[in-house]
């Protein structure tokens, strides 16, 4: 498999009032193309920090991140922004849509960064919105007029619209109920089945089951890895395998 991301001795240290906290310690890992990689770990283990360091949203203290053969850790903030628009999509726990923009415009605001032709960009945005089950009637609504699930699916559409090399999802179901959470996971799974690489942080075992590769972060290090294979709905054996792995990690 082709690797998209390769990290080399990745470290992140926060300093608070003179006290240093090492959140990531010498992490070496690979993320592969086409994978649905899930990063799990206890609260405060450093999984979100790892996700944002991998995506170039946050700068590591030491080490480097090589993304598609390009070292991104030395890029300037604006170079990273240009890099992200071409290569990364983000789904956040809080959706983070722009409240003053309609649903369609939220997706187009990302789509137009890479596709200058408005008609083409709009067609792609509409197509992607349909693919995450956001019907036309909602396109001119504003984020505050949507349900949590709808808003998160718009967030997924925005993340997917530029067909990025990798989508980073940070607890995408964390603020949703189980029904809407499932819809969101279905949308991500569908995208992955269509070839989209995804890295998702979660502490929810149901969400984690959607991944084909599990990385467990403990005390800032990768404590364990598990290959689950492609997600198949209702596969109990897969669930047990994951539960045993997490049990072994002290989950």
């Amino acid at each position, binding site marked *: 498999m082709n690797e998209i991301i390769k990290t080399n001795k990745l470290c992140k240290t926060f300093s608070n009032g003179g006290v240093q906290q090492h959140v990531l310690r010498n992490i070496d890992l690979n993320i592969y193309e086409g994978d649905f990689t899930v990063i799990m770990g206890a609260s405060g283990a450093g999984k979100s920090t790892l996700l944002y360091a991998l995506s170039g*949203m*946050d700068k590591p203290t030491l080490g480097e991140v090589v993304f598609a053969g390009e070292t991104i850790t030395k890029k300037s903030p604006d170079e990273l*922004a240009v890099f992200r*628009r071409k290569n990364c999509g983000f789904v956040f726990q809080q959706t983070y849509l722009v409240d*003053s923009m309609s649903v369609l*415009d939220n997706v*187009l605001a990302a789509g137009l960064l890479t596709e200058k032709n*408005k008609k083409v960009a709009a067609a792609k945005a509409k197509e992607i919105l349909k693919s995450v089950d956001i019907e036309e009637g909602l396109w001119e609504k504003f984020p505050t007029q949507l349900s949590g699930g709808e808003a998160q699916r718009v967030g997924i559409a925005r993340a997917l619209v530029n067909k990025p090399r990798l989508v980073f999802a940070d607890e995408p179901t964390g603020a949703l109920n189980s029904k809407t959470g499932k819809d969101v996971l279905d949308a991500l799974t569908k995208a992955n089945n269509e070839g989209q690489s995804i890295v998702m942080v979660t502490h929810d075992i149901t969400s984690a089951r959607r991944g084909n590769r599990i990385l467990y972060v403990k005390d800032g290090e990768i404590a364990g890895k598990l290959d689950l294979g492609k997600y198949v709905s209702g596969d109990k054996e897969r669930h047990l395998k994951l539960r045993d792995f997490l049990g072994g990690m002290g989950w």
Partner: protein
Amino acid sequence: MTKELLLAKSHFRKNKGTTVGIFLLMLIAASLLSISMVLFTDVYPTAQRSADRLDSGDGVIKIYNIGEKDEEFIKELMGDDVVRYGTSYALSYNSEGTISNTDGAEVVINVLVENAEEAFNKTMARTEIISEDTSITDNYIYLPYQLHTSGGFEIGDTYNLKLSVKKYDLKVRGFLENTYYGCNNSGCYEMVVSDNVYDELMELSGETNYCAAVPYELKDGVMQSRFATRVSNDVITHDFTMSAMNVSLSDIIMSRTFMSLIIAVSFLTVNIIVMAVITMMIANSISNYVRENMKTIGALKAIGYTGKNIKASLLLMFIGIAVIASIAGVALSYAALPTVAKVVVAQMGLAYNTSFSVIASVVAIVLVVILTFMATMISVRKINKIVPIVALREGVESHNFKRNPVKLEKSIFGLDMSLALKTLFSNLKQNIITFVVTAFLIFLCVISLLMYENFNRNPNLKLMALEICSGGIAVEYENADEAYDLLASMPEVSNIRKTYDFRAFTNDEDIFIINVFEDPSKMDNTDVCYKGRLPSHDNELCLSGKYAKNNGLDIGDEIKFEYADKSYTYIITGFIQTTNNGARECIMSEAAARNIADVENFMPFYLFDTETEEQTVKVLEDCESKLGDKLMNTVNFYQNVEGSLATFKGIATLMLVLVCFISGAVILLVLYLLIRSLIFSKRRDYGIYKAIGYTSKSLVFQTAASFMPSIIVSTILGSVASYFLANPYMQLIMINFGLMKCTFTIPISGVIIIAATMIVVSFLFAIFESRRVKKIEAYNMLVAE
């Protein structure tokens, strides 16, 4: 109170940038207000105090061509109308002279030349020496103080005094202060010369220019205008070669201080706009505070703070800023006042030092504080309505996104501009503030430009002079034909027209300057008649529009004029606009003037045109050499205008620079405050944009560009509106001085430069200020929230 104080300190710490911006606006407002108040409250009283000190009475009557000292006649003339009067004698005549030592331009001035004995022994309306050098003992001259303050003359300089074609180079021995003859706006300059020069002038002049100046104090109940009319008529009746002119103390003080009044009003107008901006900024700041601190307000209310406590804390903060800023502003105004005072003194011609004015300072501070109090009280009302639990959930939705005015799919603009427009619409209130402020500031700049253009760069002579020509010569009536023939023989001279003026009265008390043209149709400045037509028959005249308006007269009406024992009723054919003689002037033909006066008694002026100023100089020199002593006076019109406007030029330039500077400062402060608050309130959105791939450069542009449509549209509309409204606005002011139809030139190129500068400077500053977006990091904004 302690908890409110603690909260106020917390607000201040959290909003340092905003408070600094509002502080600076308040500083400007208090400073402008203080300067205006000092000018309003101090300058007029200073002139009044000076008049009282010099025992100036109620007015002065100058009796021209009195021939010799005649106390009996003057006593009879004053009659029972006065409590007391004083008499002094001098030479009084119109002469070309320099009032500016810097440009040396010669203007026609009315001078009152005295010797020391007459000048310094007056019983009323005394003349005081402000400074002198007694070591200069011969061939000296004392000049009015204004020729020092405005004209730049110093003791020891040489002053060129003329009488007819005779010139005297005199050493300046000192400067004088006199209520009635110290300022070019009051129409006459008093000059005291050494006895030898005075005797020589007397000999040369003969009885022709001998004049009595009679300051007087009227008895209670005597109307000054009626008194002046009676005296004027009695003088003409006594001897038709004599004439009298009255100047009232109130008119003289007004003429000496009106420029300070104009400066004060201009500062006040700018100040009103700054105050309006402060109000909007306070309202905007409080609205932002409520939106951004909804949770905090909810928490404060939940733990027992009342809406009153929170409101009081905001009030404390803004009042605190207002008090400190206004005190600092008043202090700043006293640093700026000496510069303003220089301009005032230059025009007023009185020794004047700015001193601390308690009233002006208190008024400035109190007004700024009261405005702040009111703006804060009105803006904080919404805090009462906030319910703690709703606020804690941040459930108060203040935005309504039902409309999507800029759809990215259909927008004709690029992505960044489209997003900038979206920001504009979601930030509409702030953009309306920018729009309104910009439009007003543009209007102020255009008014200043108008004043600069018409009083300095290209003086608008058609509005400021009754007639425009290249030059003129004055001769006694018996030499008129010879003078005309000489001018007519010169190839460079064209359109020679004969003119003279005299004073007649109407309505028993209104003394008019009657401007007589041999043939009014030859006048160059036909624009002076703004309504109707110039007179062409011997029973017609053109009357001052202001006088006609005040007295309910219209074109076609009749008006009776009296001169000595003659009177005649004329038909009004048109209205003229004039600022002279309190706008009491009219124009008539020589034939019409003969109905009430023997025009042969007046000294005619031949006005003429040439192609260039050099030709005018040559023509005047030729006239001097060929007419010799017969030539009574010469005028180089362009130099005359140049010199007469010297004081106004300085003021017009000062106003243009000051208004443009203050306008720039205000719009930049407004942008500073609005961009700060926009970036703060949209920091989450900026985080999102950065996360999905927008660069800081793009977001900086979007932020700056979001303010540009309102600035550009406002600048364009403001410029166009100002272009059309500036003259009507000026007319509202100038109508009081007699200009009934203002057609001041407004240079389109100047307006375009102001507009373009406003747009470019605003955009550059907006870009500069929007760079704060760079500091927003997507990770911190989205993950750490």
